[in-house]
């Protein structure tokens, strides 16, 4: 048991952290916001928590709270300009935001440790803490999907004109999605800070952005299972075979092209859909049988 944990513990931790970021990315996409800002929001949460702990000796619990709060606040501020933009323009604006946070993190050496990174963060978060956070966020995402919030996000994503015609204030709901996404990114950023001793600005750069996007695209952007499955497969894949690990970037690249072209809804959502359709077909067949 102990040796099993030693071998797989780090991977489990990585999975739980990345799952949080995947859910952050998932939420905005679900509400039809074309944002790639999760990397920057996670950086904001992580650095808030890290700086408070290292420079001011703040208790980690407060640091995590502050990181979550800052992630939410930054997202809310950002949601105002984003509400005026659409589609690719949102993508470009959020890419710029990621770049701004990255540059400022490197530049503000006195505060963030600059390119060298922020060192000596107490490592107080372990697997149980990550697991608790991941379960909580999974529950919230599941709950969102079964209440009016999820329904509203869905109609906005599918067709804004329809949403508006039903009385949905699109900017307000997208701001909500964005704030939730920021809260989750901030929370998991802070957890990452307290899980890894050190932060370095480049953790939250392009590769982070591509990874979180890949989890969601691969798994699916609709059901809760999407990010759960997508993150699991993409993190486990490199562990399964050495060539896959050595060509990780290549594998991600090919998978992105293949999945978006041939399974555009992602693996989990496609499977769920197929299962749902089979059930409907069986039910209709049974009904026809009964009529006879």
């Amino acid at each position, binding site marked *: 048991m102990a040796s099993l944990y030693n071998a797989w513990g780090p991977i489990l931790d990585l999975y739980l952290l990345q799952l949080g970021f995947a859910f952050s990315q998932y939420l905005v996409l679900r509400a039809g916001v074309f944002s790639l800002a999760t990397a920057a929001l996670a950086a904001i949460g992580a650095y808030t928590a890290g700086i408070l702990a290292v420079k001011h000796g703040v208790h980690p619990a407060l640091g995590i709270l502050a990181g979550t709060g800052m992630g939410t606040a930054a997202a809310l501020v950002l949601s105002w300009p984003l509400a005026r933009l659409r589609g690719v323009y949102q993508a470009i604006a959020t890419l710029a935001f990621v770049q701004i946070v990255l540059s400022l993190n490197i530049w503000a050496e006195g505060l963030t440790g600059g390119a060298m990174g922020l060192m000596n963060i107490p490592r107080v978060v372990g697997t149980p803490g990550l697991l608790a956070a991941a379960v909580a966020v999974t529950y919230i995402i599941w709950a969102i999907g079964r*209440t009016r919030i999820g*329904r509203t996000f869905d*109609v906005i994503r*599918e*067709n804004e*004109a*329809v*949403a508006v015609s039903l009385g*949905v204030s*699109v900017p307000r709901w997208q701001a909500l999605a964005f704030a939730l996404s920021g809260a989750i990114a901030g929370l998991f950023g802070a957890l990452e800070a307290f899980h890894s001793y050190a932060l370095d600005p480049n953790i939250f750069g392009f590769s982070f952005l591509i990874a979180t996007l890949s989890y969601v695209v691969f798994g699916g952007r609709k059901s809760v299972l999407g990010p759960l499955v997508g993150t699991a497969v993409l993190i486990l894949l490199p562990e399964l075979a050495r060539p896959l690990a050595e060509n990780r970037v290549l594998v991600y690249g090919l998978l992105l092209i293949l999945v978006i072209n041939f399974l555009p809804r992602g693996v989990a959502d496609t499977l769920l859909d197929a299962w749902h359709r089979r059930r409907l077909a069986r039910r209709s067949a049974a009904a026809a049988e009964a009529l006879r």
Partner: protein
Amino acid sequence: MTGGLELRALGKRFGGVVAADDVNMSVPPGRITGLIGPNGAGKTTIVNLVTGMLSVSSGSILFDGRDITHAPAHAIARAGLARTFQNIRLMPEASILDNVMVGFHRHETSGLLAALLRLPAAARETRAMRDRAMALIGRFGLAALADHPAGGLSYGHQRRVEIMRALATDPRLILLDEPVAGMNDVESAEMAEVIRGLAAEGRAILLIEHDMRFVTGLCAHVYALDGGRLIAEGSARAVLSDPVVIEAYLGSPLDA
């Protein structure tokens, strides 16, 4: 004035194209008002102006005596105005039930936190909305298909889902943009009954339609539009036999 919709000297320009010009109309509650005109006459533009999806260039729009000319589209919908779309707009992968349930948006009141945590209040509300949606779907005779994805339905059924979604908002005015386009005679006769029922409930209805028999059978009052201008109004029979209207249709190369 007894409520309903009132357009006063409404105008809309797209760059050089005048899509609506000095349009005066009223759509009273409890009656079906028709709006006809050849392709490109500006009928859909009127719907978009009324529902706030396009900005008004000139004139004003009153709804139950309230000026909604420059109100944001979602506020107009919340005031009790619903529409269907000429080119059907459903969530194709979602079930009929889910498509109809989003229509209840403006009646959902459970708190955000309750919804986020799926507290009992939110779960209860969702169940209540599901029941109301199922009742509506049953009324339209689609109960057996409620769990089927809307995208796989026939054209006529999809139009019905759109109307159900609009009805879920419980509107006092409903704008129907070609509700029987692409339907067969049986379906279209059923739809006529539905629309009559809505008017009998006291709702104001603006019906846009190319099928003249359908219009004649339903509408108490008809407006005819051409090139963004009203060219005739009155009883269906009178408007349809108006030489100016006939000329407008015959002059149109796309006349069906």
